[in-house]
């Protein structure tokens, strides 16, 4: 089969083939389909089933052309070119034109006259091609076949069966691209229809793509059904804010409301696909937003204030705290906004207590990122994943945490034989779909498994490890590490050792869209923009030159990360409570400036909330009400992604710039608010508008000076696990209870049901079977979920994080790698 990716030559190129299309000669690579050769000449052959990223199937028969020497018209989408072939399309051949008109007439026999109520009306290939390649009058006067309509193939995807032309684009997409063959063509002849199995709805993470590629209106989404017409919509190319995949999207707006988002054609990143979260989860920005600045009045209530009032109170508080302010940003900021926080902290406040990692993290991770990721050029890339001999995933479940990485791995595994290994406790659904093999690691023991790959001979005992270790040494091999590895001590050090020992390219795949950008912008303790170490005089001089400040005014030693800041606040609180004269104790953190941090994302939500309560001054830049705004002294509303322009760096490090969707938006970006705050503090900061921030970032350039060494931490001893205890493995699934998925019930209904995965031996020990309840508990609380018996180590249990009925961080106070108790039944 030929893979024709737009802009990339097919992989089976061996020599040129010359053929003629409508009498014009053209030379194309061997294996090219006739329909593509014709496209290159500008001849558009009508088609429905043909899609450049799906295997040819010739199901709709619309693309019939005359090929000299063939007795009957041939489908151009399924015939590959041959030397000297003479193709005549509808442009020059009456036979081809008549054949196409005949096919169109057949397709329309049972197609209902739904156009006025059909969402596809106005952007419908069937509508368009019926006009351009069909007969003006139908000769069919009988009664059309009808079905009850619409039916739900999932909570989100609706199917009108009589509109279907059986092109099989959706079923081929689900089968080939997503690997979720939950929909298929059922029945035969006129009764042929797309359907699901009665016990398995079409709950695929990628189901929304089928709506987009359906060439008729047979598949529609509950979210967009009857909402609008194509001519109502103002479209803007944007980039998805939900994960670090960096998908290009098209955002469609009607009357200042986002109505839908489509995957945009971005061959180097998301090809033409995206995930359902990126497609459907945009309601969060429409409801419950903060609209005005708020300040605390004398009675302690938050009241609406004017911008100048809020600014002057915020500035006064920050001026008092000065360099004893810590700046905590979430992982969802754009590169420009993260840069502004980074600059504000260093040049205005003079503090290096900055951290963008609003999630469980470690000091080892900072060392790892500083040495190997921050400010590095783009790479490894999606294209490299597709052609790598091997991709080893560590602490990363690609399908749940970076869906486009998963789709590329699946494409590579299916078409070019990429071998995938994952360092994980078990093979998740996503691993099976990329033919992945598991290098079994109990949470916390990832470092040991990775180290065995670094050493080809002695450490690698089992067959999979031997093969992975061997393949990693081949050119083009890739090692991808996820953010979860930060929770496993020594694992990131081990990953760095493996990359160094084998020569494999090392990629860091965070979960959130803004993390890579925030890292490169220096929104983390110890690093200035571009990966410049703050301890380096040269780096501080470069930063000071761009910022127009005295280099001596910038902090010269690494500050504290989020965990250390929270610990310092709480330790001071304790000291004050214990001190005979509380006023003698001077807090080391006097103020917090927080932008977009959610307490439940952190390793210890309770400690964070306690710190928020205790800190003398708290400024919150937020879009919506949160636990932080509830405790803030000043709340400043900021723009959501659609209301500002910006850039996300995807996991590759590729800048993904996007434009403002709501050009008339009155909300201010974080950068603008920080610039106003800096002006109130009489600091030189700049205007904070998108152009000037991008200009400053560009003038930083790349860093060629010294970097920190990769961390060399040794893995700790494996903890001892009691007989009724197990090690908790947990991560967030793609669709969870994330705040950015609020406001979309149809999407939420397609999320995977929560289960507790345990091994067969553990199930026997607890006397439970798949589907029966198991309870996982700690001193803090307990979670009961139905068991799912899985091939995995006996001393591990897996729970979904932040899901309905399962949020181990909050309920159990435990995270990935912690020890929990397990028992059968409901306790």
């Amino acid at each position, binding site marked *: 089969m030929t893979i024709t990716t737009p802009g990339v030559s097919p992989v089976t190129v061996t020599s040129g083939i010359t053929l003629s299309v409508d009498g014009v000669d053209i030379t194309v690579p061997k294996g090219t389909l006739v329909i593509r050769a014709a496209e290159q000449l500008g001849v558009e052959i009508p088609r429905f089933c043909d899609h450049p990223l799906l295997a040819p199937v010739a199901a709709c028969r619309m693309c019939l052309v005359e090929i000299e020497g063939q007795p009957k018209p041939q489908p151009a989408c399924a015939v590959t070119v041959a030397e000297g072939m003479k193709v005549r399309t509808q442009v020059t051949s009456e036979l081809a034109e008549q054949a196409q008109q005949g096919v169109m007439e057949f397709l329309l026999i049972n197609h209902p006259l739904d156009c*006025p*109520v059909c969402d596809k*009306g*106005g952007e419908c290939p069937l509508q368009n091609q019926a006009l351009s390649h069909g007969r003006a009058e139908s000769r069919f006067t009988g009664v059309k076949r009808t079905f009850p*309509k*619409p039916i739900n193939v999932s909570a989100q995807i609706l199917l009108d069966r009589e509109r279907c032309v059986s092109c099989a684009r959706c079923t081929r997409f689900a089968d080939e691209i997503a690997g979720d063959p939950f929909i298929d063509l059922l029945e035969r002849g006129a009764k042929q229809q797309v359907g699901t199995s009665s016990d398995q709805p079409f709950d695929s993470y990628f189901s929304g793509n089928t709506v987009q590629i359906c060439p008729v209106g047979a598949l529609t989404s509950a979210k967009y*059904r*009857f*909402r*609008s*017409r194509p*001519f*109502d919509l103002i479209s803007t190319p944007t980039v998805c804010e939900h994960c670090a995949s960096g998908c290009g999207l098209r955002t469609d707006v009607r009357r200042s409301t986002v109505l839908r988002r489509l995957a945009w054609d971005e061959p180097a990143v998301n090809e033409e696909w995206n995930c359902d979260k990126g497609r459907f989860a945009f309601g969060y920005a429409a409801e419950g937003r903060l609209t005005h600045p708020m300040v605390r009045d004398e009675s302690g209530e938050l009241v609406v204030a004017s911008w100048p009032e809020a600014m002057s109170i915020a500035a006064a508080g920050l001026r008092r705290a000065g360099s004893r302010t810590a700046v905590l940003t979430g992982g969802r900021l754009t590169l420009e906004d993260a840069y502004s926080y980074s600059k504000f902290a260093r040049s205005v406040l003079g503090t290096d207590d900055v951290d963008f990692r609003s999630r469980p993290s470690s000091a080892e991770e900072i060392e790892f990122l500083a040495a190997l990721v921050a400010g590095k050029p783009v790479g490894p890339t999606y294209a490299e994943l597709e052609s790598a001999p091997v991709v080893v995933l560590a602490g990363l479940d690609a399908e749940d945490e970076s869906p486009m990485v998963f789709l590329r791995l699946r494409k590579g595994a299916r078409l070019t034989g990429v071998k995938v290994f994952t360092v994980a406790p078990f093979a998740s659904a996503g691993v099976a779909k990329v033919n992945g093999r598991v290098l079994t690691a109990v949470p916390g023991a990832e470092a040991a498994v990775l180290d065995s790959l670094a050493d080809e001979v002695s450490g690698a005992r089992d067959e999979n490890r031997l093969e992975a270790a061997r393949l990693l040494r081949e050119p083009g091999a890739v090692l991808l590490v996820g953010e979860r590895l930060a929770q496993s001590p020594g694992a990131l050090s081990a990953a760095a050792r493996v990359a160094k020992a084998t020569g494999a390219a090392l990629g860091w795949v965070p979960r959130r869209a803004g993390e890579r950008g925030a890292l490169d912008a220096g929104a983390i303790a110890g690093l200035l923009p571009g990966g410049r170490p703050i301890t380096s005089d040269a780096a501080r001089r470069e930063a000071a030159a761009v910022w127009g400040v005295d280099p001596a005014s910038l902090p010269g030693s690494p500050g504290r990360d989020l965990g250390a800041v929270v610990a310092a606040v709480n330790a001071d609180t304790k000291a004050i409570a214990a001190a005979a004269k509380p006023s003698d104790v001077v807090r080391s953190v006097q103020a917090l400036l927080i932008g977009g941090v959610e307490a439940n994302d952190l390793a210890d939500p309770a400690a964070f909330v306690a710190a928020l309560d205790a800190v003398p001054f708290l400024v919150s830049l937020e879009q919506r009400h949160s636990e932080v705004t509830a405790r803030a002294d000043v709340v400043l509303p900021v723009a959501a992604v659609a209301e500002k322009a910006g850039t996300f760096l995807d996991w590759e490090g590729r800048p993904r710039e996007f434009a403002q969707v709501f050009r008339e938006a009155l909300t201010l970006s974080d950068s603008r608010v920080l610039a106003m705050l800096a002006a109130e503090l009489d600091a030189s900061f700049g205007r904070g508008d998108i152009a000037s921030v991008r200009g400053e970032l560009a003038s930083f350039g790349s860093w060629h000076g010294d970097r920190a060494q990769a961390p060399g931490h040794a893995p700790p001893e494996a903890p001892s696990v009691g007989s009724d205890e197990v090690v908790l493995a947990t991560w967030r699934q793609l669709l969870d209870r994330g705040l950015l998925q609020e406001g979309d019930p149809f999407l939420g209904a397609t999320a995977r049901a929560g289960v507790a995965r345990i091994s067969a031996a553990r199930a026997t020990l607890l006397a439970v079977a798949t589907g029966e309840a198991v309870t996982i508990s700690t001193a803090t609380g307990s979670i009961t979920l139905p068991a799912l018996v899985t091939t995995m180590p006996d001393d591990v249990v897996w729970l979904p994080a932040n899901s309905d009925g399962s949020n181990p961080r909050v309920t159990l106070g435990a995270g990935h790698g912690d020890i929990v108790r397990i028992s059968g039944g409901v306790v």
Partner: protein
Amino acid sequence: MSEDQRRFFRGFGVPFSQMFKRVTTEQYPEDKRPTQPRYHGRHQLNRYADGLEKCIGCELCAWACPADAIYVEGADNTEVERFSPGERYGRVYQINYLRCVFCGLCIEACPTRALTMTNEYELADDTRAALIYEKHDLLGPMLTGMAAPPHAMVPGTTDTDYYLGNITHAVATQVGEAEARRLGTWTGPRDDEEVTA
């Protein structure tokens, strides 16, 4: 008579001859005359014989409009509230008469004959808002045999029956539902929010 005098009286001949012709001046507004039957006046959103709306919210009228005078938002008919036969109805329907040029392309585009034009031409007003007609301004009157939506379709019929004109009047269940909803005693499916409101 000199040449000048002849010219003088010839000039007065025109008004003099007019004095004996029929007067075409209309004494509007005291005396209102009917327009031609196909005169393009104010629009009307029609109903089926049982009171359900014909509009399906397809926006083809808005699409056809050369002056961008029409704004439509479609929505789903639900078990709770049904405004038209079939799946879809026009939730928002506005015509801006400051923009409308009365060309009639919209009524030609309408696939269900929901939108037609009346002979009503008295459309002057003194505010912008008053000249943007909402759906309730445009909907046709409730005639004998109709029940005010929302209410269910005639039992056992489909939207095709409505389109083919097989529905002639509201049946007892529909009248009962409309009346019960009006009095707030409706016990069938209903929108909870509406109850609290």
